[in-house]
């Protein structure tokens, strides 16, 4: 049975379209973007209602796929995170209807 992984990418809102293009190009069949409202890292805090330019906002991108595709995708996400702020994790998950990914 194929293993499935979920990618969770926390990245700058301004850069999220770049991340989406990376995911699409790497062959992930789908993803969903969630807005974040606040955060902390490197001893700096941000909050959505605080900054009119929204230039510090982050989003969380969730993408589920089979192991091979996810591994391939992760390499390219590494490139993106060289330039942009963000962190990414992968988790093993069970899926319904595995054929779909």
């Amino acid at each position, binding site marked *: 049975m194929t293993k499935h992984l979920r990618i969770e990418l926390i990245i700058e809102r*301004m850069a999220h*379209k770049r991340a989406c293009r990376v995911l699409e190009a790497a062959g992930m069949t789908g993803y969903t973007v969630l807005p974040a409202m606040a955060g902390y890292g490197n001893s700096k805090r941000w909050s959505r*209602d605080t*900054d*009119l*330019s929204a230039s510090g906002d982050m989003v969380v991108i969730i993408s589920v796929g089979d192991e091979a595709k996810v591994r391939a995708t992760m390499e390219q996400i590494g490139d*993106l995170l060289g330039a942009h702020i963000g962190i990414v994790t992968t988790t093993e998950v069970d899926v319904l209807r595995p054929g779909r990914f």
Partner: protein
Amino acid sequence: MDVAISTLLSPIILFFALGMGAALLRSQMSVPEAFAKGMALYLMMAIGLKGGVEMSKNPLTMDVILVLGAGIVLSFLIPAIAFACLRATTKLDRVDAAATAAHYGSISIVTFVAATEAVRLSGLDSGGHLVAVAALMETPAIITALVLAARGGGKREKPVAGSERGELVREVFLNASIVVLVGALIVGWIAGEKGTASVQPFFVDLFQGVLCLFLLDMGLSAGRGLRQGWRQLSPMTVGFGLYMPLIAAAIAAGFAYAIGMPAGDAALLITLSASASYIAVPAAMRLALPEAKPSIYLTLSLGVTFPFNVTIGIPIYIFLALLITGQS
């Protein structure tokens, strides 16, 4: 002097001070982001419409085209000077200095509005085409900054993963404020005074009031930015946020004198040059120069230069304009 005081005690500035005070006292109040963005949209539509209606009253003259050109040149030029100042007087690295410089070449539309009001109170007139100048001055600064950042060998060998040809152009030249300002200007121009009469109660009568609410939010943003970010700003950097507007104003005054602009228009061109962006440019910088630190450029532009301009700056710029037109 009188203008300075009535500016400082206008509800607009008082609400800005209220927001800033609340943020510094660490009040938890906030204006919902969606509401603030909606107000920003409204303000830009209103400004654009007004400018367009004004422009529809007079034919497009050579004078107007000269002023548009001056705006573009200033927006290209000022970042280079800002960059040189930053590199000479602060420890910011090339990328941070370039990103910050871009903000000072671009403009703040709220500062522009406050200046329009102050100009009117001073008994001067100003033309609708200054709105077009504002729109044109938004972006050239970004190009200068990218060139400055790249020259230091800092140029990326290959583009950031996932970036797309035309992405920056779309983000920068088709950002909301430019599209809405220019678009509404054209709408106002086409529809004219008669055609826009039915929307006057919304776009004209409410303008000052919405501006109060918006400035309350800007005060909150500025205050919070300052509270969280001031530690990252050296005294020399803060100093830059205060003297750079004056340098830019002086240069713009030179241009205005050279072209022979009337006092009201000159005051606005000077204010545009002296103002710094805190919405469009920070967003563009996250895409174009992601390595630059927002806590520096945003704190400086919104927390230092914006308050300086709307309180002390504008009266100075009007005075300058009167000086070069020989009225003071």
